[in-house]
């Protein structure tokens, strides 16, 4: 009975004339914005293509129909820039100061998580000091008008630590720009010296494809991700 079933299945496959076939890597060309055509290197190019699910037929059947599929798997990309990664203040006398913004731009085609860690009040760089810390605040805004922030909007350095997700949107695809302001409150107890704090901002591409090596964005084993889905 089982043998009969196997024969039946094989016969059905034979009649249909469809064979899965092998997955073949294809050459890929890019038409650049200037209109020139460049053949892409498999490792450095930004696109790869494979052909699969071959088919064939041979008999007198009058009408043959075969499905044909184009599938595009698009990886998440990010393009970002920050106009500076360090503020250096020179303060002659105590006061509550804030500085014009550092500009941060981000483009992506998927959710991006921004995480901040290690942000704290500035700390006396060497041992000693009457008050070893300078109160530090940050303010992130998309307002590009350079309007001085009000006093209520500032976030204390330690509270900056955490994460937020910039969700996939048309604005993100086109590029979002944020401005980061910095405020320090230098008091009389702060001894003359250098105070410093360094935090880390981490950008995580939340919708990355599994065929991308997340460490460096290089190609993974793409051929393993060619499926038979139609």
């Amino acid at each position, binding site marked *: 009975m089982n043998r009969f079933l196997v024969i039946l299945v094989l016969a059905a496959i034979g*009649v249909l004339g469809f064979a899965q*076939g092998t997955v*073949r890597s*294809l*050459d*890929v*060309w*890019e*038409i*650049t914005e200037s209109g020139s*055509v460049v*053949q892409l290197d498999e490792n450095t190019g*930004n*696109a*790869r*293509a*494979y*052909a*699969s*699910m*071959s*088919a*064939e*037929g*041979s008999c*007198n*059947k*009058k*009408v*043959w129909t*075969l*499905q*044909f*599929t*184009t*599938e*595009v*798997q*698009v*990886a*998440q*990309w990010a393009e970002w820039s920050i106009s500076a990664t360090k503020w250096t203040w020179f303060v002659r006398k105590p006061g509550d100061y804030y500085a014009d913004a550092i500009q941060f731009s981000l483009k992506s*085609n*998927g959710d991006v998580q921004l995480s901040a860690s290690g942000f704290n009040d500035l700390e006396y760089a060497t041992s000693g000091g009457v008050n070893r810390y300078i109160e530090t605040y940050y303010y992130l805004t998309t307002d590009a008008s350079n309007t001085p922030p009000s006093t209520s909007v500032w976030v204390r350095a330690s509270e900056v630590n955490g994460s937020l997700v910039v969700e*996939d949107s*048309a604005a*993100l*695809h*086109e590029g979002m720009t944020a401005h980061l302001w910095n405020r320090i409150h230098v008091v009389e107890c702060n001894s003359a010296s250098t105070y410093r704090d360094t935090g880390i901002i981490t950008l995580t*591409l939340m*919708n*990355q*494809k599994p*065929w*991308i090596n997340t460490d460096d*964005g290089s190609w993974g084993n*793409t051929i393993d991700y*060619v499926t*038979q889905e*139609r």
Partner: protein
Amino acid sequence: MKRSLLIIAIVFSMFSLAIANGAAEVPVYAYGDSDPNNARAFVSMPTSGSCNKNWEFEFTVEAQIAQWVKWNISGTKWTWFVRKPGTYFTDCIGFTLYSNGDIAIDFDGFASPSYATGTSVNPYIDAWYAFGDKSEDVAFGTWYSPSELNDQTALFPDSEELHYGWGTKLWSKIKVVECNSASTYRDTGKITLTLKNQKPWLDDNGYYLNNLEQFVTDER
């Protein structure tokens, strides 16, 4: 009454023709790799005589050849992996077609690959298709959008080239833009090959009809 007479007359005439035809199936043998199941033979139009005159009678061999097709395509799916936006086209999927009669190829259901799940800022990727042999010819040649492809019917007339195998290559071009969110986009269309000169004694699946003897004629 008249209708009954007419039906009886038609049935009688058909019966008479069959008798006159005298078609009888005979065994078929094949040489070499030929499969005897791919041919059937009938003998018909018997005749006889009995007297002392000189006799002459016609003798006919008629072969009705069905249309056959043999085709293969090296892939029916393109899978693109794209790291960054751009306009890309790829090396081909080879298509080879052999037949002994006119073939029509129709395209249906082709569309821009669309976001396979959920939503995207731009859920479609522009796609085009082309036919040709060399990348340099194809690059700036005619590219068909999916809707243009659906409007195409390619007719391959019977020719020596078709008998010995006609081949072309299919090319795929996509334009991934910044508004395409990271994900998988897919489209599946249908290609239909139709044998235009098929004989009436085969069914749609290429099998012999049961009443094959009805296609044995008295024509010389």
